């Protein structure tokens, strides 16, 4: 009898502890998402309140299907996500192996590797914009030396601009992928390698047969975080290209921002943002399914 009173008291207490966090998430996260869904059925501009006449049903969605810029924006965002996450995971594994196996200068090497992650995205965007400068950028010097007539205007050419931004993103985020993968490396039991060594397995064979399979769930977690973050790319595009040249780097989040805040088409912009949300939502579900319970079962 007394026990059940105690448990009830504990539940009430837990409820009050969770309340502030819940209020913040409800007001600034969950309500806004729902409100964006709502707004996507209206035709209205940023500075007006909703009136009944502004309701347009699914008109924004059908307009989106016919919007060539939006379609292009989808394609380049997907391309960006695939290219950057692929290289970030690949380099992430290499960097994680380096971080895991260094003993001399460990602190320095780890701190150096963390710098790209810690730097503000805006700073790294300006930095890469400077490196990709058409007249005196370091990228040009590295590739062409002093032959200034072969220098490329990286950010003024549609294809090159896209890859420049992808490169900047890969530089910045590979170390984050590495941090997650490192955590996975650290829990692989050492005796597995010992046993393999006794059997005469080469290092490469050990990596393929022991490390990679055991890393799979961690790699999936890294992949989940990186994919979602790549879909939300904004700062790089805002600073380096403003979506240009033409619409070559006009990624989804930047397009949505432009529609809502620069042009003031709140209804149409919300439609774009709803679509981005749905894509990310489906992707997360897919990953979480693949991961099964590993993500949360440990502690709860």
């Amino acid at each position, binding site marked *: 009898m007394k026990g059940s009173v105690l448990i009830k008291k504990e539940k009430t207490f837990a409820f009050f502890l969770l309340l502030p966090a819940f209020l*913040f998430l409800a007001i*600034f996260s969950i309500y806004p998402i729902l409100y964006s869904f709502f707004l996507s059925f209206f035709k209205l501009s940023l500075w007006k309140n909703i009136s009944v006449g502004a309701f347009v049903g699914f008109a924004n969605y059908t307009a989106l299907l016919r919007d060539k810029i939006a379609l292009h924006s989808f394609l380049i965002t997907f391309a960006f996500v695939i290219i950057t996450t692929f290289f970030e995971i690949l380099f992430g594994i290499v960097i994680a192996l380096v971080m895991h196996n260094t003993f001399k200068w460990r602190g320095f090497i780890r*701190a150096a590797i963390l710098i790209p992650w810690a730097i503000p995205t805006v700073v790294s965007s300006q930095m890469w914009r400077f490196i990709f400068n058409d007249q*005196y950028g370091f990228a040009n010097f590295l590739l062409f030396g002093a032959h200034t007539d072969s220098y490329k205007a990286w950010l003024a050419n549609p294809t090159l601009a896209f890859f420049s931004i992808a490169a900047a993103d890969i530089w910045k985020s590979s170390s984050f992928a590495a941090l997650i993968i490192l955590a996975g490396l650290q829990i692989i039991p050492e005796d597995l390698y010992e046993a393999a060594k006794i059997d005469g397995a080469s290092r490469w064979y050990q990596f393929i047969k022991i490390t990679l399979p055991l890393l799979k769930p*961690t790699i999936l977690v890294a992949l989940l975080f990186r994919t979602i973050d790549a879909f939300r790319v904004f*700062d790089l595009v805002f600073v380096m290209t403003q979506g240009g040249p033409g619409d070559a780097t006009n990624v989804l989040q930047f397009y949505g921002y432009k529609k809502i805040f620069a042009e003031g088409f709140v209804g149409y912009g919300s439609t774009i943002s709803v679509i981005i949300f749905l894509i990310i939502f489906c992707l997360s579900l897919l990953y979480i399914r693949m991961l099964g319970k590993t993500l949360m079962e440990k502690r709860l």
Partner: protein
Amino acid sequence: MKNISYKLTFLLTTAVVVLVSIFPFLWFVSTSFKREIEISSIPPIFIPSFNMQFYQSTISNYDIFLYIKNSLLVAGCTTIITIFISSLAGYALACLKLKGKRLIMGIILASSMFPQISIAGPIWRILDFFGWLNCYQGLILPYVTLTLPLGIWILASFFDKLPKEIEEAAMIDGCSHIQVLLKIIAPLSLPGIFTASILVFIYAWNEFFFALLVMTEEKYRTLPVGIALFQGQYTMPWGEIAAASTIATIPLVILVMFFQKQIVSGLSAGAVKE
């Protein structure tokens, strides 16, 4: 023989990784100490003349101190509020009996994955309604929301690792939950709280998207917005941008140098099954 070639490959890879990681930023730092003419020189000049001209100019022509003040204030307040609220929630999730924990953790994790643009319009409307655009609280409140999942996730996993026996012993001695939280859990969790604080601070210090939307007046700009919107009269003021960028990044480099262990452990909290 085989071992030597393996070691060589490893050393070489390490060297390349470290070089690629730090060179671009060092290049920008070096740029900030150059003179105007050195910036556009071909071949490039690696060792600058350590001229402070661009730093002086960022102070006198651009309001760099104002940006620093705004950034410190916003990131500082965000960190304090987020850590306080996440400690409460983290304790409830890790140590108390509660139904639907996994669902709650799932919702918290999911909300950290929302694309900024999908919530930006409505948040803008809420802030506009309360007259909080171009106000510190107008940026701090969304930042607290955005960093809560990170804080709760790290702290919950930290609290969970604390030995349950200590709590139980305290409860038997007649401590209430509040007392357990304040007198036992909090002091034991200082390392975890510290780790979470560093990560939340870095997030708030670096955030750009909401800062751009909420702080439209020059007076309230944070460092990232200031750096993104640097404009020269005729040409790009690369020297000044590099100087401001160096100033904005130095605190982070210091944090990373001293606390890389905490950062690594904090970011991987919950990423792997132990």
